[in-house]
């Protein structure tokens, strides 16, 4: 026969919450279970410590305030459900139940408030934050070079000393020495005429 109590009963036994009959039965079983006896002892010690340091009952803070609020709400709801003013009373409905009238104004007021907040939000300009332009960390990739003429080679490098991009062409046919620079070649500073077959936009 299995006499081991179930878990729920054991938990109650550890907490000394069982009735006398069950308590006696579990006590008989636990007499041979030092582990469970120790567990109950620890629970009892903990209880005694807590009892010594915590008051048995404590009033919530500002209890009067909360009680008064609750009482007022109960009173208001009771007044709404069953108005006590007799028919023909000179007291106006607004005076009788001011909360009822305000109930219609509240949604409109809330909507108006939201609209006002939205409008105010659009009027507020966030302070301008100056963010330094990110330094270009990625160097400019080497340009692609294509030399369609056979025997022509091109070599690119960025020249720091000249602050320029340099392409050295090798194998290019020399321009004949007989070639004369035309007198019309412009060495001035002004832009020349457009040679593209479209008009320069003005």
């Amino acid at each position, binding site marked *: 026969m299995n006499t081991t109590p179930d878990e729920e009963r054991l938990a109650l036994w550890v907490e000394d919450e069982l009735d006398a009959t069950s308590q006696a039965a579990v006590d008989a079983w636990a007499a041979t279970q030092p582990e469970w006896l120790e567990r109950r002892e620890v629970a009892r010690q903990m209880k005694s410590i807590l009892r010594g340091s915590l008051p048995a009952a404590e009033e919530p803070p500002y209890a009067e305030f909360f009680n008064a609020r609750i009482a007022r709400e109960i009173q208001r709801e009771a007044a709404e459900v069953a108005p006590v003013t007799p028919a023909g009373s000179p007291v106006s409905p607004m005076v009788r139940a001011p909360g009822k009238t305000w109930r219609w104004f509240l949604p409109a007021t809330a909507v108006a408030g939201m609209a006002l907040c939205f409008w105010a939000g659009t009027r507020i300009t966030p302070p301008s934050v100056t963010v330094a332009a990110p330094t270009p960390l990625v160097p400019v990739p080497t340009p692609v070079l294509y030399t369609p003429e056979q025997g022509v080679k*091109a070599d690119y490098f960025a020249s720091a000393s000249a602050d320029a991009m340099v392409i050295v062409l090798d194998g*290019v046919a020399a321009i004949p020495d007989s070639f004369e620079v035309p007198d019309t070649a412009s060495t001035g500073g002004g832009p020349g005429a457009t040679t593209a077959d479209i008009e320069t936009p003005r």
Partner: protein
Amino acid sequence: MNRRDLICLLLLASCGLSSAQLDPGKDVIGMVTVTVYHATNGDAGAAGQRAKAASEEVVKRLAGEQKLKFAHYRELGKDTKPLFRSYENWAQPLPPSDEILLRFEAQSKLSKEKRRRLDIELWLSRKKILKTDAAMESGKPLLVLGPEWRGGRLIISAELGPIPLKDQ
């Protein structure tokens, strides 16, 4: 030609004109200046009377690079042409000769205002010699050490400049 035909022709012409004016591809987004220098360690006068001495700034820049270092630099010709948003353009630094031509076209913009990658083609003696996609920026020219001529080398400089004020 009667009056109705004339009106139709005028309408067609005005439509063509307005569409051309509205083409954003013709927007000028920069200026490209191409200059041809004759660099030599020999006779500086070999370039002829027409050539003029390069400016001190140019000499300093060119002589600063070992590969481009020569004793004398002469400016043979210069041409500045607009860089269009969508269309190619050609610079002809020695007009009317087409011995040296530079074709260029906008390709991509690498940073907000500074660098712009261009398709560039160098044509010498009516042959395409070089094609590249250099990232150009103002104040940083592309210098091409080109063909030999009269005991020296021709240096072709291409530089991207800002848009002229009247086009902005």
